[in-house]
């Protein structure tokens, strides 16, 4: 039932690139390294004698969180991103536990931003963000292959021009 609401059937829903998983895993790797560091420090402290077993707990927790993010959360969230272009508006949906769907009319677009952080640049993906006059409009599509991002940007810009409406 919810699927019909967030993924309206009959539309050409496009997924984002699987490379986004790699990009999203980078901070998770940082977390894992931090956890390992904490564990190493705890074991070093244990080897010098003056310690108790509880010192390892924060490291273990970090590692578990990192593992769950790495293997479950990141792939599932990334695979939930979808976008669809309709005649008059763009639909963007994402999220597994907390789902969201934004419908942005082309005529309301003020700016189309294409951005990529260093990791994304290496992977050859970019984020396309639609900015309207509203700060709460949440319509960005991460993890698009660069050429797809540029094509999408140009298509959106053309449609925005044709359907422009102000405030």
């Amino acid at each position, binding site marked *: *039932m919810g699927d019909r609401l*967030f993924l309206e059937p009959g539309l050409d829903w496009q997924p984002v690139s699987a490379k986004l998983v790699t990009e999203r895993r980078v901070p998770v790797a940082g977390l894992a390294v931090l956890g390992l560091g904490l564990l190493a420090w705890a074991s070093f402290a244990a080897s010098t004698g003056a310690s108790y077993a509880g010192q390892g707990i924060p490291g273990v927790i970090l590692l578990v969180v990192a593992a769950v993010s790495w293997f479950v959360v990141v792939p599932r969230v990334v695979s939930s991103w979808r976008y669809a272009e309709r005649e008059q508006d763009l639909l963007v949906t994402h999220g597994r*536990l*907390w*789902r969201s769907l934004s419908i942005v009319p082309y005529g309301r677009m003020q700016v189309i931003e294409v951005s990529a952080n260093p990791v994304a640049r290496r992977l050859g993906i970019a984020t396309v963000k639609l900015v309207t006059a509203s700060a709460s409009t949440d*319509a960005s599509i991460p993890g698009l292959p660069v050429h797809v991002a540029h094509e999408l940007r140009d298509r959106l810009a053309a449609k925005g021009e044709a359907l422009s409406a102000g*405030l």
Partner: protein
Amino acid sequence: MSLDHEATPQSVPEPAAEELRRLHPLTPLFRSWRLVGLAGALGYGAFGDDLSRLVWVWQALHGDAELSLVVRAFLLVFAAALASVGLGWLAWRATGFAIVAEAGEPGTLLYHRGLLIRQRSQVRLKRVQSVDVNQPFLPRVFGLAAVKLDMAAGEDASVNLSYLSRGDAWALREEILRHTSAETPSADAVRTPATDVVIGHVETAHLVKASLLDGAGVLLSMLAWVVLAVVLALTIGWKALAPALTAVIPLTLGLLVALRKQVATILRDADFTVTRTPTGIRTRAGLTSTANRTVDFDRVQTVRIERPLLWRRFGWARVDVDVAGAGEAAGASLMPVADDVAAVALASDVAGEVIEPVGGVAADWGSVLIPPGERARLLDPWAVSWLGVAVLEHGVVSRTGVLTRTLSYVPFARVQSVSVRQGWLQRRLGLATVYLDLPSGTSRWLAPHRDVAEAGDLVLRLSAAARQHRRGASAAPEPATPDGEPTLPR
């Protein structure tokens, strides 16, 4: 300054220096009124009782006598005040504004200022969201006023012309409004201010009562805490008073802050008068300093009717509007308190259609109001009886809020984008929340806990209606204002 500095498509003629209008010559004095006031006070303290002491100062300056602390402070502040006023005067000389308009084109406000760094702004008057005439306390005493133009880009982009003489300020406001509300100024030149009608006024006694009742919950709970702490201290014994007091001190401070806020609200909204002009609503309020706010009908993003808990038994309500860019500005209030019928009439007038049936909180909507999903009761047991959405002809109404029952109306033509969200609990219960995104500076419109099937339907209807109204607005500049007599519920 991020004004509408867009590459001007039609070149605006550069006005000659003498065409620029100046601000009032007293402006530098009021801009640095704190220093001037302090210098005055200190001067009075130093020499007030004995003017012959001036001779003594003369001696002191020549090293014949010791200067007292007050005299030294006075000299210092006097010098600072002089410098500040002097700089202010130079800045005043560099400041000027003019309205230029070519025949048939909407006008542009040129605003030149800046002593060291020259700034020249061109404000397209068509883009102005609202025009305020403000009179802070001191300038008000001297018959001066400031004209403030709000732009959609937010607080940074607003233009504040301070100060002008009161008459000039009102004339300028009229002039600007002629440009903002009409495609062509000439078409509107025939309109006279005589068509303005006062449609509401709030008695101060009523305002004070309402304001106290509105804040009563906070005040009462705070008082209860204080009483509780004292009672605890008394029953447990005086030794426990110290820890009890540490709990009381922040509460007392909180109480004072709340009281101060109440007084500020009352001062701000005192003598509240609502006037209907042909293109919008003008409000005027304030005891020590007055604020005049003008809101064009076609600039309104949201209309809200709010009914705090303790107002409901009296059948009172307040009306707020959101205008892009105005932010949390004080003037967002259209009516601080009124009885239900008047509040709904005013709100409907601004919205251009009736947005609530007669009857206030218990109004009978019939089948127009769609209740939330069945199982919303589990997530929001206190609000569920109030929650609901009604899709009207030109806009959509949502009812939210537990303590303060709020009804928000958004015209379809203002909707930027539509979104749906669903948390994991909502998903379990087959519910989803629908949002409308509106320009920055306005609050978000939301319809919580819709049944999933109905939410999908609502999203479709809302985006279709928004599209249709947008197209209507861009194809022909059809005014969003009701022509002639508005249809009011009675």
